[in-house]
């Protein structure tokens, strides 16, 4: 379980949202921005000072603090493209 948080993903990894702790403050806003269960995302990077992290979901880019990313359970997905971003 511990290893399947959004927080645990590395830049470039893709995953599907399994669940977001609904008692988490701010989780409602995440839902409204389309972070619904089953939505697919990709981790872009961590900010220069290590926090927050940037993800791409539903065609847009979102900055999210690590403390929050720890409360989001995900399932890793195989990447469908080469490392340089070109599709296989």
């Amino acid at each position: 379980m511990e290893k399947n948080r959004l927080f645990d993903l590395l830049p470039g990894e893709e995953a599907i949202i399994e669940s977001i702790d609904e008692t988490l403050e701010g989780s409602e806003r995440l839902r409204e921005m389309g972070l619904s269960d089953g939505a697919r995302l990709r981790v872009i990077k961590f900010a220069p000072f290590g926090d927050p992290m940037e993800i791409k979901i539903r065609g847009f880019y979102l900055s999210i603090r690590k403390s929050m990313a720890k409360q989001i359970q995900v399932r890793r997905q195989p990447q469908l493209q080469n490392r340089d971003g070109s599709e296989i």
Partner: protein
Amino acid sequence: MKSDSNISPHPASNWVAIFGNPNCGKTALFNRLTGLHHKVGNYPGVTVERKSGQLRGTSIEIRDYPGTYSLYAKSLDEKIVTDAVHAWRSTADRPKAVIVVLDATNLSRNIYLSLQILDWNLPTIIVLNMMDEVARKNIRIDMPGLQHHLRAYRVIPASAKTGEGISAIIEAVKNVPPAKENIERQPRLIEIERYIHPLRPLIEFLEEREEQIGHNTTLEALSLISDFRHINYLKDVLTKEDFRRMKALLDEAKLHFDEHKIPYRALEQASRFAFIDMFIAPVIGEEKISRRSRSEKADRILTHRFFGPLLMIGFLAFIFNAIFSWAEYPMNLIENLTNLLAGLGQTSLPDGPLKSLLLDGVLAGVGSVLVFFPQILLLVFFLAILEDSGYMSRMAFMMDRVLHKIGLHGRSVLPLLSGFACAIPAVMSTRTIENWRDRLITILITPLMSCSARLPVYILLIAAFIPDRLLLGFVSLQGLALMGIYFLGMFTAIFVALILKKVFRGMPSPPLTMELPPYRLPMMRSVAWQLIDRAKSFLQTAGSIILAISILLWFMASYPTADETLNLSPAQKIEHSFAGRLGKAIEPVIRPLGYDWKIGIGLITSFAAREVVVSTLSTLYNLSADGGSSSGLIAAMQNDKHPDGTPVFTLLTALSLLVFFAYAAQCMATFAIIKKETNSWRWPLLMVSYMTVLAYVSALATYQVGKLIGFE
């Protein structure tokens, strides 16, 4: 007929509302729809809740609301939108039509708000903005399919950039059909059976009171269960007894969910996105998450671990340098014009009090502030570019860790940077910070950012008393001093924020989620609009407050007139005037800071607006100069002597004054806006008192320590 009264707009309503997500280009579109004919509710004391204007070529009013992601408000900004929408329960408050603006390159997220608004079943125009980008990115949107699934009155592809679709929107508003044709009762979501079932009793109860509620009852039930604040909107529409019964039914439903361990708090959102994934996603050609957008590629450098912060510092340095050097020519021009006018007046106007009032009071006072207009415009220009290009969000992204540490928010970057232009809009822009603690700290430290009104004072003092030399052959000493005084404000702000974080440690600080919008070339049109708005408000201040104070000061410095037989010099006459007496009265208090009575008058008059000190000094020196010759203020200050022959202004006095003006809360408008935004006297009073103490103590320390180590 029940359903009719439920959905029809008020026959008399002749206005439309315009909504949209942040970053959807709504403001630019609003400007396109209205031309420049809009009113911006501006400070001080005026509510800035919304902009409104006239739809071009019609008599229809169009009201602009702040950008929002949903109708469940998370911040004050969003609450304005939510309150406005819930007012539609009453027929009289319904608009003729609603416009929802969407970023067409990012529909699957943008469409959520539209679904919420569409379900109020007013004639709704869905505007797909940024179609030019959609074409460039090869995104295919099935317009008829979208129209079919959304069941909107119109879906109009548009672009605020190219002007595409603007006339179609205006036509659509003009031709809004009679209400009956828009009857549409099926909410736009997918009801999830195991959720809906426990809510049935509540829904049935609400259905019996549909007339009062004025909104789809299934949605009301979902909103009640999803958002605990929603219930407040029903307080006024239901009778006390009904409200109590509804609460009981709601509690029962919650209990049922809890007993069966069904998560229910994100019910509405889940049902909406189920709808989006089922019906909308197939027709909007969404960008794959694996696709590296151009912005993402640019960010490899721009938010790079090492180069990102470095570039950011570079950009900011460039901006501050530009403000200083680019503004020189227009400033000289304004100065020359003022001198030309003064010369003309000198020769053509008859001698007397009126001439003195016009030349020494009005022209000298207003002219000396107007000369800094180019710099203020440059700063506003750069802020608009940073915001519209999308780079401002990247700064927030990069700085969040640091800002969070001192009790702020990544989003505090915008208010704090805007604070360099003017604290008033900066304080207002803190509304986008969802959390009260972060917001309050940001509000309280924003006035420490050196606003553009301080710039005239800084420039005057630096130009007069910091040597115009180059360090190491290329760094201007004057530029360095200016940067130093800006940094002084910034570092002090960090320090104060740390203290406030300790003071407010009881308040929670929820996590940051912030969109990083794609980089876009700022639309010059939109930048120009922002410039015009700001220019107007600055000139109004210069034209009213500063004019009034200039005249008041001229009066105070000219009256009572001294006895002619004593044959006093002009300077002695001023000492005899009201102004001189007042300045003298406070001299003992400010003497230890290195100031004389003239500066004392400046401090008094600039409590209301700090830039006034420049015109005060200008008025005072113009009057004391022989024959009113227009020798520059700088020269007058450099040459001014105490009765014993020592100069009034030394380097140390100038430094002490710089520090004082960097810290002092000399702005009535900021005080008023903080009172309004915090809805309490406590916070503006705290702001003024901590800043005044800071200003006095620091200026005192600067002067006395400087004297001790042998300056002067």
